[in-house]
Each structure stands twice: as structure tokens, then as C-alpha cells.
């Protein structure tokens, strides 16, 4: 399982990449995609939507079930990745390349973990 060191992680299994200027990209982690299994649909927010930390920002459907993506950040949706919406299986194949949402005007965030701490957190979850 992959835990790239340049990223931050939430306890609800999203990764966060600081892209500067008070903005960040989020996606789901390798652990998350592996737990979900084959992903076949993602429902993304609209550009301009408000993101609130700890609340649902998107949802992904695997063959088996639906899961909410929890926003680790509060801010404004600046962009969504339409390529991933068209090819949701890319979240399985390349979870850290397949960013979902870009959030700007970040005003608050959930507790974020380093790669090392997130790895330990996943190991505890089994």
C-alpha cells in the first residue's frame, strides 16, 4: 500500500495536496480505493459550491456500495476533475493521480495526518 510523503491525510481516508495560494487538491487514498473495490461512478460537486470540513463533498460508487467523500477542508470548490468523472476506475489504478476536487479560500481543516501517522492509522484499522 502506498503512502506518498508529500501529502497530508484525513482520518476519513482522503489525501490533501497543498498547491499554494491557499488552495489544495483532494482525492481518496490507496487504502480507501482498496477497501472500496472497483469504483464505477463518482458524483462530484459543482465549481463554486461551498466545502465544509467533516461534511460530504462527493460520493463514489463501487460495484458493491456507495461511500461518501468527506471534505477535510472548509473553503470553496475551485475545480473538479472531469477526467476522473469520465474514468472513475482511475481512482483504483492511480489513487494519488486521480485528484477529485480543488478547494480554494481554505478557512479551516480537519485534523490532518502525515504520511507516517496515516500509515500507522490504517494499520490500526486493519
Amino acid at each position, binding site marked *: 500500500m502506498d503512502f506518498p510523503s508529500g501529502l497530508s491525510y484525513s482520518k476519513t481516508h482522503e489525501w490533501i495536496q497543498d498547491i499554494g495560494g491557499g488552495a489544495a487538491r483532494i482525492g481518496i487514498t490507496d487504502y480507501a480505493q482498496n*477497501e472500496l473495490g472497483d469504483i464505477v461512478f463518482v458524483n462530484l460537486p459543482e465549481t463554486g459550491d461551498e466545502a465544509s470540513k467533516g461534511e460530504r463533498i462527493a460520493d463514489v460508487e463501487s460495484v458493491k456500495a456507495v461511500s461518501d467523500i468527506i471534505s477535510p477542508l472548509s473553503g470553496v470548490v475551485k475545480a473538479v476533475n472531469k477526467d476522473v468523472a469520465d474514468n472513475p476506475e482511475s481512482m483504483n489504478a492511480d489513487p494519488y493521480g486521480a485528484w477529485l476536487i480543488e478547494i480554494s479560500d481554505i478557512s479551516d481543516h480537519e485534523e490532518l495526518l502525515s504520511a507516517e501517522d496515516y500509515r500507522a492509522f490504517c494499520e490500526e484499522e486493519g
Partner: protein
Amino acid sequence: MSGQASTGENEKRTPLYGSHVSLGGRMVPFAGYLLPVQYSGVIAEHMAVRARAGLFDVSHMGEVLLTGKDALANLQMLLSNDFRGMPDGRVRYSLMCNESGGVVDDLVVYRYGDEKYLLVVNAANRGKDVAWIRERLSGSVTMEDISDDIAQIALQGPASDAILRKLAPASGIPEKYYTFVDDVAVGGIKCLVSQTGYTGEKGYEFYLSNADAPLLWEKLLDAGADFGLVPAGLGARDTLRLEAGMPLYGHEMDDGVTPFEADLAFGVKMGKDGFIGKAALTGHENPQRKRAGLKITGKGIARGNETVYVDGEAVGRTTSGTHCPFLGYPVAMALIDQSGAQTGTAAEVDVRGRRIAAEVVPIPFYKRVKR
């Protein structure tokens, strides 16, 4: 991400538990058992069954023996199908109805002889079924729940024939759909073999003693290696049966849904003498609501228990739905008002507050090409 499945500790293990774990199966609780939901992935396993073959542990299924000179009379009373004139070695699907015409369970009946029948019932309903039958048996008949002693393995897919032929004599391979041969040596292991399944593909099911199950599982996987046989889990079992339009108890039918509503009239013989539920079903052969197929044409995936709309009016609810890996689009089955059930009708499904477009289509969604 949220909504993780928990791993139960109170569930029973099938005799193949160790085989699943060593093959990397992801174990989940299901109907009181720990079973693999997937090994490599639901889509890969699903596609393998459609193109080649898959091997399933279905040992959770319940097996109930009915023996005695009044066994047939009791079946006739308990079940909606007609078992008179059924040849030995045949398998027949039936509903077991309650007095209101709702479905207690759907099951298959194996006929060994005039005085011996095997009923294969849904794992989740086993206790309910056994109690239901016991309270209603009359005359010279004995019921025995042998589920805990019997393992069941399903080999499904177009390559299943070739794989089985490597392990069993020709005389031990049931030639026709819904027939079986008992006491077959499959790789030297004694089994009942039937040509049955729950995937929409040609396939076989093996019933055998728990102790022999891991060895048969291994022999089948070995024999199938050259044919692309893969172990397959509950996830693929569900997507395969849904794509093939096959009903699942607790979804397409239950105690409050009649066989006619579930579009299972082929398993009900209204012409036979009084079976439980017949009185309530009489005159309701064409119910107001009926099972229909939906192809999801909008963006999203319908699951079960979601409201279906036609022209903005609620016409019923989905009973199950998923993304179909072979077809490449999502489908659902729904129990909807007949007025909205015509093929081609434009519909919508409310998926967690979002209405997504759908179209009424015939069931099955997928039908195999016979070869």
C-alpha cells in the same frame, strides 16, 4: 470516505474458510457466515465467469431432506410448484408461500425418488423455513436439516463443462439444465452434481461432505487453471445474478410480495389442489404492481429501496440494483405499478436525493448465447 463494513466475530465459517483466506479472499459476514466478498476484484471475477469460469463457495445455503411415503403430498401442500410426475434426477424451482400469498422463501427441489426430496433454501431463511415446514408436515414424512453437514461449491461459466470433464466420468455429468446425478466421483470425491446456478451462465453445483470440500475446491481450481478459472466471491455472485435478472429473496420478494408480483408465475401452478397461499393468490394473477427491469441512463447507480418515478409520480421502489460489469451500465429491478411498467417507459430513480434517468427494459438484462 465513510461507511465501512465491519468484520463480524459471531459468524460461522464454512469448511472452505481456510482456502479463502489463503487465496486472499476478503472475508465479510453474510447470512450468519464469513464468506469472501471478493478475491481479485468484483469486475474481474464477474467477467471471468462470463468469458471463462468462476468457482464459488455457496456452503451457506441450507439443505433440508424430506423423506417418507407422504413426502410428495407434503411438498404439494407446502410449495407452489407441481411436483407430480417429476422424474428422478430432476431439479425444480418453487416458491413457498404463506397464507396471504406472500413468499416465505424461494428454493429448489431435487427429486431422488418418490419418497426422497432435497430442498435447497436460502441461508438467511433456513431457520424460518425449517420451523415453517415442521409445523405443517402431516402423515408419514420426516424432515432433516442437513445444512451443517453439507458443503456446496458452484462452478459457473462457459468453461465449466471442459473443467468438469477433466475430473468426472461422462456418466456423472448432468446433461440438461436443472438435472442432477448423485454419487459422482469428482476427482475421486463423492458428490451430488447438478447443472444449476445463479449466474446466467452454464454451470454446475456440487454438494458434498464438509470434510471433502477443501480438497474438491483445490482439485477444481487446479483442473480449471488452463481454462482461466478464478475463485469468485459474493460481490460477483450478486452482480452476475442481477445482470441475469435473477431474483434474490429479501429484495425482489419477501413475506409481503406475491410470486405474481415478483414475476415468478412459472413457479406457481394454480391448477393444482390447495397449496398454502393458493386461496389468497386466486384472482390476483395479474397484480397491480409487478417486477420490472430498469436500465439506468443517467449518471449514478440505483441500489435497492429507492423510489421510482414515471411522469413525476411515484410508481414503486427498486428492489436491487448495481453496475453491470459485462453490460457496462447500471441496472435495477423494481416493484412498480403496471401502468408504468411498459418496456421503453422513461422513468427516474431517486438516488439519495438526486433523480437519475432510467428506462423500463425487459428482464433478463443479459442473456447468454448458447454454444
